[in-house]
């Protein structure tokens, strides 16, 4: 277990700023998820923590020691890659023990650690196999085992589940969370999948264009997005943005929507209202009217798309009501939970 501190990290690759002046504090034992669209610099950030990418300026501290120029093997890290990156000519056992053999660990100790990792990951029966004889999920388990036997201070995951099919992904996701609960190690996990981020993280770091947009618990980041980018990136179906203005008396008016906001910031002026699907409630006595354009049944709930003036909004319905396209419905917006953004720079307004 170790903490990780990044100070004013700058990385340029091929003459382009990938990461600019980035500060990040990862507490010991934390499961931190770096979330962002592809090309946002999250993988580069992870690789720089691992020492696989050279940084141009700044400092990296792992467990209180400056590791800015340390070799990857000296940083006390274990890393799991998207493509598994197993050594194809070695057996599962040799794959897991390669690092320990290089470090000159005594044979008995190597055997003990490999046996323990194999037991935790249910790889006991596969130790003699080559990677080509394993399924995708088994290969990724071996890659995790390879990081485990190093007894690393910090585990780094670079989109480890992206190559797996949906069912395996959910399964291995639960295993990873259990593993973190068992080991209590610091884990830094890169993904573009918001479900992985929400379910695994103790804190999420949302990144875009080489800069951190927001850091917070999954609930904070989801409920109170710091800006329009975060608000739009998290959540499916996405948040609906409505251009409008505050009238100075705590009321939002925009297009067909007029809504009294209990926590509206003082003053008048243009704002953007952000409404998540679950903040829209379809009910007969709702103050607003919308026409159903599309219904997406999801099994345990359904997504109903409404047209309200020029706006397209989605609403979550958790009961068995049946809606048909063309039907006109009343609905209400939960004014206590909506978000307001500055139309100029996209910042969140108010509390």
């Amino acid at each position, binding site marked *: 277990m170790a903490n990780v501190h990044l100070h004013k990290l700058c990385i340029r690759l091929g003459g382009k700023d990938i990461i600019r002046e980035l500060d990040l504090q990862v507490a010991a034992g934390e499961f931190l998820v770096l979330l962002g669209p592809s090309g946002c610099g999250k993988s580069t950030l992870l690789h720089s923590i691992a020492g*696989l990418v050279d940084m141009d300026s700044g400092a990296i501290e792992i467990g209180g020691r400056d590791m800015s120029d340390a070799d990857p093997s000296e940083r006390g890290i274990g890393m799991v890659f998207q493509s598994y990156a197993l050594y*194809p000519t070695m057996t599962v056992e040799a794959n897991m023990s390669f690092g320990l053999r290089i470090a000159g660990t005594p044979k008995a100790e190597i055997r003990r650690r490999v046996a323990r990792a194999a037991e935790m990951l249910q790889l006991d029966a596969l130790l003699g196999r080559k990677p080509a004889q394993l399924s995708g999920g088994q290969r990724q388990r071996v890659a995790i085992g390879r990081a485990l036997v190093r007894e690393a201070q910090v585990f780094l995951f670079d989109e480890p589940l992206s190559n797996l099919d949906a069912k395996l992904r959910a399964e291995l996701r639960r295993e990873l969370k259990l593993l973190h609960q068992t080991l209590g190690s610091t884990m830094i996990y890169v993904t573009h999948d918001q479900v992985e981020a929400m379910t695994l993280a103790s804190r999420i770091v949302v990144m875009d264009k080489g800069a951190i947009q927001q850091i917070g618990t999954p609930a904070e980041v989801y409920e109170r997005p710091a800006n329009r980018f975060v608000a739009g990136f998290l959540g499916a179906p996405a948040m609906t943005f409505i251009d409008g203005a505050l009238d100075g008396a705590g009321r939002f008016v925009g297009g067909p929507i007029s809504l009294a906001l209990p926590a509206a910031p003082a003053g008048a002026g243009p704002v953007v209202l952000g409404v998540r699907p679950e903040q829209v409630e379809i009910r007969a006595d709702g103050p607003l009217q919308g026409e159903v354009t599309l219904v997406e049944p999801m099994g345990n709930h359904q997504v109903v798309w409404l047209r309200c003036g020029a706006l397209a909004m989605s609403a979550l319905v958790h009961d068995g009501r049946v809606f048909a396209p063309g039907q006109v419905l009343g609905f209400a917006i939960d004014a206590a939970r909506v978000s307001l953004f500055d139309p100029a720079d996209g910042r969140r307004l108010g509390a």
Partner: protein
Amino acid sequence: MTPPIAQPVIESMMEQPPPLPLRLPPPARARQRSRRRRLTPARIGIYAFLLMAAAFFLLPLYVMIVTSFKPMDEIRQGGILALPHAFTLAPWRQAWSGVCTGAACEGIRGGFWNSVWITLPSTILPILIGAVNGYALSFWRPRGARLLFGILLAGAFVPVQVMIYPLVRVMALAGIFGSLPAIVLVHLVFAMPVMTLLFRNYYAGLPDELFQAARIDGGGFWRIFLQVMLPMSLPIIVVAAIMQVTGVWNDYILGLVFAGRDNLPMTVELNNVINTTTGTRQYNVNMAATILTALLPLALYFLSGRWFVRGIAAGAVKG
């Protein structure tokens, strides 16, 4: 691996009385068959051309083989395409251990062994050094690697003949001219561009993450090369070996110039046999000696044609 369903399918076919054969709808089937069977004029033309081309290239080989088994009397009677009447192995024995190669008359077996001793190190060393080059260029990417690689490739376009005289001077200065190390060194230098290219392209096709994983595991330059990359390189090593063995074995000019009188390769000895001006020309012995010289590359082509094509493709497409 055969799919696991294969076995039950076969079993069920054996158990059940008349199984309904799985078949395509009749029209599609008929059309497919007719397309495959019908001999169109275009197809006849293609076959005719292929047969002629094959005959064109195989005819000399046929003449060589039949001539090498005939006694000289029979050859003098003409009938170059006729099969041997009095089949004899004497020309082969003569070519291997009795024919005159210049002053000595000990056959071309000496040349054979010289070629073996030149080819072995001239294959192993370029492969090893080319593999290290390709590995360093693909994964460690030292400063100026692209420039170095460019210069190396440019070297591949300079004709060998241009370099011979300067190389002779350099070798003479180093005091190794006309020796086994000299000829091996020359082959090594001339093989570097293509060997480096071959391995660089092969390693460029491996995922970078594999290298990164090995770095995190604590592997250094040589350990990652020897324990991770080299064991994965078998396919490209086979390709490189085929290219290098045939290239070195078939070389004439470099062997003639650099190897020295004691190490002349088989190709040079063969030339000496055939260009002997005294006495009658022993066509049957000449043919046997030529086949003996060509035997190793020929066998290599036949045994490894698939790999050889792959090597050409690797060099051509990715370069």
